Structures are given as structure tokens and as C-alpha cells.
């Protein structure tokens, strides 16, 4: 079941790949040398990536609020 909170990579990613290996559902992929990217459909909002991102490039967002913006 999806949580209300999901996470996204906002900016400041240094491509250390830590989050890539944290994600239990493999929702994270890379744009090489540029940034990690989180697939919002796959993300279950566990927060592991967020809790381990050293440069704090990952931010939480409320799903409803985000969806309204679409």
C-alpha cells in the first residue's frame, strides 16, 4: 500500500548511489553523472533513500498535493 508521503530527488544530487541500494522496491534509477531519479509510481514512501542521502537532495511530498499540481 502506498503511503501518503512519497519522495523525490529535488536537486543537489551528487550521484553517490547510496539511495539506489536502499530502495526496497527499486524505484530509483540514474541519469548518469547528473542525478538519481525516483519513479513516483513505484515509490512506497518508506523513506530509506531520504534518511541516507548525505547532501539532502531527496525531499518528501504529500501525494495528493503533488497530484493536484499535475
Amino acid at each position, binding site marked *: 500500500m502506498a503511503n501518503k508521503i512519497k519522495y523525490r530527488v*529535488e*536537486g*543537489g*544530487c*551528487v*550521484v*553517490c*548511489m*547510496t*539511495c*539506489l*541500494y*536502499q530502495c*526496497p522496491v*527499486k524505484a530509483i534509477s*540514474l541519469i*548518469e*553523472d*547528473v542525478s538519481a531519479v525516483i519513479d513516483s509510481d513505484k515509490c512506497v514512501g518508506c523513506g*530509506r533513500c531520504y*534518511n*541516507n*542521502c*548525505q*547532501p*539532502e*537532495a531527496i525531499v518528501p511530498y504529500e501525494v495528493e498535493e503533488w497530484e493536484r499540481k499535475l
Partner: protein
Amino acid sequence: MIKFDAFNANEIPVWGEYDVVVVGGGMAGTGAALAAGRAGAKTILIENTSALGGLATMGIVNIPLDFCSGLGNELFDRLTAINGLRKRNSNPEKHKLVFDQMIKEAGVEVLLVTPLVDTIVDGNVVKGIVIHTKEGNRAIFGKRFVDASGDSDLVYFAGGEVEVGRDEDHMSMGCSLEFVLGGVNYQEYASSELRLKDPKWIKFLEKAIAEGKIPDIDNHLNWMTVVPDRPENCGMDEVSICFAHSRNCFPTKNDDLTRMYIEGREQCHILAKFIKENIPGFENSFLCYTGSLLGVRESRRIVGEYRFTGMDIAYGREFDDVIAISHHGFDLHGFTKSGNLKWFKGTMPDGEEAYIANIAGWGSQLPPDDGIKRVHMTELVDMSKQYYYDIPYRALVPVRLENVLAAGRNISTDVPGQSGTRLVMCCMAMGEAAGTACALSLQDDVNVRNVDVGKLQRKLVENKCNIGQGFRKIPSLADGDYSDFMVEMKHGNG
């Protein structure tokens, strides 16, 4: 008083006798001493500087990356409890404190400000070490030894087989002196366009270097950590920065080390001024201090029973005698010029040479355009599975010597292999394995080469180490069920 042939048969007073003697109190050595002490071995830890933690504390590498294993999880818990860890940013002072406490609780004796200066060797067996103290040299006898000095000092002094730097000219990769800036408005920086669009300052520096605003110290910001438990959100944050770089490094030569410390401090002053004048949020910043230990990424390594290589990383290789795992991949720093090399020149199984890139890309110094084929790691590993590689126990075991193990950044590797096994938490995991193995080899009365690796692996898993049991079957653990292991890993598996 005891006589032995080191130092021309001088008489040297004996400091003590121990089951396990660990040299070097960095992440690896502290891990080894804790593991050996907790397993009941009478253990002493010898450290040259004034605190434990090595590069991670004295060197201000306060960015503990890689998988968290047994003792590593404990360290993270304890740091978190005293606000010493935020995400992967740690507070070096709290880190020192926690290590002091853990060592004391484990009943391990520790000698700070005490360098190892020689060894006492009988054939292939190290009998003791010589330390330098305020009262003169002293001998420490032991049954098992861990060389966690980062530079393989113990194995080298004992006449063991070692190698330094890259194969062709023994030069080590770029060394960095870290520095700390105070008075930073981190919020302002965090929301700046520079951080959001160009977090490694690559385009920004290219322009600044071209305009002559700053010398070509490096072509990217290596990393910047916000030090936890300092003033926050009031324009007074403290950050530590990895940017300065010495090139053409020979870190086992004291004259070159001296050159790098002096050059590093000079660069840190230049960088602090440049950052203050050019980076948003740093207008009121000031240089607090530079590292008291030079950031030597790679130097003298043991020649072990197995030489772990870049190709092992490229293929994400598994070994039956795994004692620690990592996922970081290659991460070399320019030997003679600026840039981060997330690639190396390897030989493919068919014998053809190739430049092989990390999953994350090529880094900021690209391979030469010389027709050699380019391979991306994603072509070599199954990206649908968890990526990791194993560090085999044999890479910790020096050839010939019977009662010494290496742990940390000086295990047996080639340079690309070293670049993917030197991460802070990985070094601690290797240390824990080495300390546990020493205790086991004493219990079973076998030399370190003949330790029952299955037994060692089961012991490590009992102590909640992550040796990959959550990802796959390890032969010695065939009977166990580790399906809930990943759930247990509180700090995640990265």
C-alpha cells in the same frame, strides 16, 4: 627486560603481552579491537594520533558511506542518540567520543599518541611490535596482530610483502586535506541555483578557472557535509569540505607527506576565500580548521592470498569466503591532474583491454580518446538485482605471515579495487571481521590463514553483520533463514 635483535640487540623494556594487538585506530582498527575484545581476547589498540576514528574523525572525512554492518549499525545508533549523525553527515567530535566509550566498555586497552616503529619477527610469525613512548621504546608481545594502519606499516616493518600505488609507477591517487568552514547560511546555499543545478560545481568551476579566479586545484566539489549538532538555520552552520588536492603523491615518504600537508593548508586557505567571495550562503563564512590527518585515500597495501581487483567490482563478484560487502564502485582521484575517475582500464575476460565505467557514469576526468573500447558496468551486471560485491577473507590475509591480518584501506587490492573498498563503513566492517577472525583463530588454535571461514561468517551474522546474507545464499549459512534480515537493518543497507 628482554633481548631481541631489532635495533642492534638493544634491550627494550616490555610494555605487556596480549592475545590480539591492533595497530591503527581508524575505522578498521577500532572495529577490529572492539570485535576481538568483545569476543573475550585480551586486546590492545595502538594509535599514532590523539583520538580514534582515523580519517573519519582526525581527517574530517565525516561522510560515512556504504553498507552498515554490525558495529557500524551500533555506531550509527549511538551517534544518532547524541545528535552526532544526520543522514550520512557525522560529527567528528561525537564520533571520537563514541569510539572512546565503546572501546572502554569492551575492555580494550588503548594507547593514543603512540606510533608503531618496528616489529619483532621470528620466521613467518610476528612475535611483537615496538612502540615509541615518552619513556623510550617499548615492546608489546602478542599472539595475533591486525594491521589497520592504512599504510600497512606493521606488515612492512615485519618484512611482509607489500605494494604501493598504481602498478606502473607506484604513485598513489590524489590526496586531500579536508577543511571546515563556520558561519555558513546553509539554507541559502541549499536553495541556491548553484546547488540545485550544478551541485558538484563543475560548470561553475570551469568558468572560474578559465577566468583565473582560482587555480586548478580540482574541477569539481568532491563533497560538502553539514556537521550535525552545530548551530542550524541561523546563518551559522558548519560544513566540512573535500576539495583540496595534492597530485603526484607518494604518501609513504615523509618528505612528500610534509609537502602535501603544507600544500593542502595553502589550498584550503585559497578555497575558503574563493568560496566566501563566490558561493551563495557563504558570505560570512570563515575557515575554522583543516584536517589534522591528511586525506590519504590509498597508499601501501599488503600482498594477500587474494588480490581484489577493479574487475571484481565491475562484475559485482561474489566469493564464498565473503566477510564484508560494498556497493560504491570505482572512485579514483586524479593522480597527476584534476578530476574524479569513475572508471579504470581493465582487461575483459576475452583478453581485450577496455575502459570500464562505474554505474554512476564516468566522473569528471574522462578516459583518453585512444581507440580502446569503452564498457559501462551496466552491461556487465544484472541491473534488475541488488548490486554489491564481496570482499573475500583472503584479501585480508597477507601471504607468508601466519598471525597477521590486514583491515581497512590497506587490504590486498589493485588500485581500482581499493577505490571501491575504502569507504568508511566498509572499513569498519572489514575491521570487525578481522578482529573476530583473530579471536576465532586463537580459540581454535590455528593460524589466521586456516581459520574456519564458515564459522567466522556465522559468528559475523550472529553479530548482525551484513555479509550479503539478505541478498543471496552463502554456502556456510545454507541452513539459516535470513529472509527478514533486510527489515532488521535499521539504518538501511546503504
